[in-house]
């Protein structure tokens, strides 16, 4: 058999995808053809390298959460159509999850295009990254909300609500000042397992409580909510569902969930 003919079949021979007759012909040819044998060896080595070196990309948590949300929505068609959340979805496009709590609505979202709040989200993520990079996570390191809250009072012209959620495994670890949206803001720092959560808080003058879009940026999840005249921006690399659970605590700190 001609070498060129066999050469084209080496790949399928390697994958054991030739029919027995063709496979037999190739085997026979290989015994007498060093060039084809060498080519087969290279292809085999290439396959081993691909399987060893190529990363298998597993679906990120946020994608999984979005798909699960779509599945849940598909399971309750009527609820999706008529519920207030449905309009929010249409408005938000690719938003990921809505949790309606008490007086405010909190949204975990990932949006394909720049939104008006995207700039704020970007600033919040930058603030979060800064806090991790500069070894400057807290100005006041305390797990006691009664220490952290007064610390802010001399430094800001507003008093951010400070609550420790250690009981729910989101302990407060401290606070610091940060600068977002051209103003000083309170940054509350929480931990969940090994993940740092930054909560940026400042007053919103025209705060109508309700839906405000948020973003996923640079691998960090951002949740935005408005409650009792305060804007909250929650940033972490924690997975979306646990971060949403945390946001739920923030949204109703005194209520019993």
């Amino acid at each position, binding site marked *: 058999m001609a070498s060129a003919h066999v050469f084209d079949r080496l790949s399928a021979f390697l994958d054991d995808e030739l029919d027995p007759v063709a496979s037999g012909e190739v085997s026979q040819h290989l015994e007498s053809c060093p060039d084809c044998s060498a080519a087969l060896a290279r292809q085999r080595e290439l396959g081993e390298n*691909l399987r060893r070196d190529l990363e298998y990309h597993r679906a990120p948590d946020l994608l999984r959460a979005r798909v699960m949300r779509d599945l849940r929505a598909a399971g309750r068609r009527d609820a*999706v159509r008529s519920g207030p959340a449905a309009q929010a979805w249409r408005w938000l496009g690719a938003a990921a999850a809505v949790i309606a709590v008490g007086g405010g609505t909190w949204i975990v979202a990932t949006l394909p295009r720049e939104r008006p709040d995207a700039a704020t989200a970007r600033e919040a993520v930058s603030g979060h990254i800064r806090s991790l990079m500069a070894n400057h996570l807290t100005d006041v390191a305390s797990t006691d909300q009664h220490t952290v809250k007064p610390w802010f009072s001399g430094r800001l012209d507003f008093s951010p609500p400070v609550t420790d959620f250690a009981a729910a495994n989101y302990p407060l670890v401290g606070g610091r000042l940060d600068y977002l949206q051209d103003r000083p803001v309170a940054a509350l720092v929480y931990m969940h397992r090994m993940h740092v959560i930054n909560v940026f808080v400042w007053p919103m003058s025209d705060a109508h409580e309700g839906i405000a879009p948020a973003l996923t940026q640079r691998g960090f999840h951002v949740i935005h909510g408005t409650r009792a005249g305060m804007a909250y921006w929650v940033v972490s690399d924690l997975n979306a569902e646990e971060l949403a659970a945390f946001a739920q605590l923030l949204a109703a700190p005194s209520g019993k969930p």
Partner: protein
Amino acid sequence: MTHEESRETTGPEPHLSPRERERFDECVLPYLDAAYNLARYLLRDGHQAEEAVQEAFLRAIRHFGGFRGADGRAWILSIVRNTCFTQLRRRRSGGAMVEFDEEAHSLEAELSAPEADLARAIASESVHEGLGRLAAEFREALVLRELEGLSYKEIAHVMGVPIGTVMSRLARARKQLLLALGAGAKESV
């Protein structure tokens, strides 16, 4: 394919009965990782891959009633790859349909290159970089074969082509990857 066709945001609200949901969880959902991995290699961008996979799963939910086969993996992967190729075509040509032409994507050098020079190929350039230089259709074939371990028949099902095409595409993909890696080696000498 037109812009409107490719973006399936209209149409009936996706709905699954509890029974269908159970079947979907069993036959399709386990391949979310495989779906993302394929999209990631085709689009070469994490964010776009996430969007494509979510869109593909919405389509899958919408059309699950028409799924009668046993092979949920090939089924969802074919939806994912079609979604990705729609995006790639839009990227390549601003929306116009461009058929993949295997001949046009073959390297001139492939017949004349001294194979012996390629032997030390693999060490010098990472296979990942080499793979990134191949046409998406070739990347797809290699990912499905080497990372998913699919048979030619299953790959044919995913790509919607005859088995003979899978065979020739994989052969070309491997040759081109060896060439791409070999070229890197020679440049660095």
